């Protein structure tokens, strides 16, 4: 009986300790990002690894998502003779939900896992301790530039995803299914308002923060051994996915 209470207490303390550690990690990384000297070169390098290197995968997934949405929308809207709503359905779905979430998933899989593995290996090979002993703050040097870069790169990637998806849907709808291109674009333009674009933008920025925050934290605090690195990578990807979906639900219910 007593041991059960002790077990529960130990578990709760560990959970609270972990959550507090994650928030302190984020706060210090954000705080240090605005302290001189600014690491412009590092931020640029990480925009390249987060944004440019994910471009191909975002391009492909955006294109196919748009095409699939088009087929699926055509299939269900045809039953009501409402094919002319395809444009607005595709654009709203991409802008509000699919664009930010799927682009964030792609970046998590493509870059977030690499981030966790990289930092975990640096921890295991004591490179982070070496930075510390040279009086270079490892959070400022390793984490802050990644967070800044993801805040810049994610909305841009999401915008590219949306545009590619809209044109992918256009190709399928107008080329294969024979919906008029005029009704596609005019339906889209009349139903999308700035609020939709804006809410997608807010979502993508917050997803960028979640991805780098979780992946850097997991990598940074990985147990210094080979299995520790692999577990940190897995945990960071899984936790990022879950947090992205939960946070997406909250943002949608607040901003709708």
């Amino acid at each position, binding site marked *: 009986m007593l041991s059960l209470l002790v077990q529960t207490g130990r578990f709760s303390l560990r959970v609270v300790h972990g959550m507090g550690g994650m928030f302190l990690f984020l706060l210090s990384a954000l705080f240090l990002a605005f302290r001189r000297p600014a690491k412009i*070169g590092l931020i*640029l*390098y990480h*925009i*390249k690894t987060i*944004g*440019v290197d994910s*471009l191909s995968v975002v391009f492909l997934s955006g294109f196919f998502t748009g095409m699939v949405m088009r087929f699926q929308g055509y299939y269900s809207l045809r039953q009501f003779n409402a094919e002319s709503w395809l444009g607005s359905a595709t*654009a709203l779905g991409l*802008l509000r939900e699919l664009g930010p979430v799927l682009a964030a998933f792609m970046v998590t899989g493509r870059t977030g896992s690499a981030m966790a593995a990289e930092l975990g290996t640096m921890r295991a090979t004591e490179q982070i301790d070496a930075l510390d002993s040279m009086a270079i703050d490892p959070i400022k040097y390793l984490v802050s530039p990644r967070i800044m870069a993801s805040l*810049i*790169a994610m*909305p*841009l*990637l999401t*915008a*590219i995803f*949306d*545009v590619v998806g809209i044109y992918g849907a256009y190709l399928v709808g107008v080329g294969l299914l024979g919906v008029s291109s005029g009704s596609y674009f005019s339906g*889209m*333009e*009349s*139903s*999308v*308002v*700035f*609020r*939709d*674009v*804006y809410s*997608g*933008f807010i979502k993508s920025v917050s997803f960028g923060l979640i991805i780098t925050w979780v992946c850097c934290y997991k990598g940074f605090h990985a147990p210094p051994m080979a299995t520790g690195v692999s577990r940190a990578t897995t945990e960071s990807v899984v936790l990022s996915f879950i947090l992205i979906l939960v946070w997406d639900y909250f943002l949608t219910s607040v901003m709708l």
Partner: protein
Amino acid sequence: MNQSRTELIVGIFVITGILCLGYLAIRLGKVEILGSGYVVIADFASVAGLKVGDAVEIAGVKVGRVESISLHDDRARLALRIDDSVKLPEDSIASVRARGLIGDKFIVISPGGSDKLLGLGGKIRETESPPDISEVIGKYLGGDLTSKSETKKGETK
């Protein structure tokens, strides 16, 4: 060399991303960077179903959009942003129409014949509210309902 190559690639990426964002915001989100056009006001008894950003048309050609909807003396006050190239006579008539039975609502302006033109902040006095769909359907489907109400009116008289 390596550094400048990174800068070049990132530059291309950022420009592409900003172009896409701009396309989404301006083409689809209809953000106006320069507030082109002028605003006229029109009061309606009802603008049910109309949204901010809906089209304003003359003879089926889009000439502007609904900028804001507010309540003024128990009537709906619309601010319509009209393109500069379109001049509206003072006695124009504005009406709310729908594309099809359940389609989007939009504003149709029928230009009048007056020599005086509406300027910035001018007011369209003559307006026509949309027909209430349920009323129309009731008239066609439940013809007895309207006839009953007519006989009741007759009785009270």
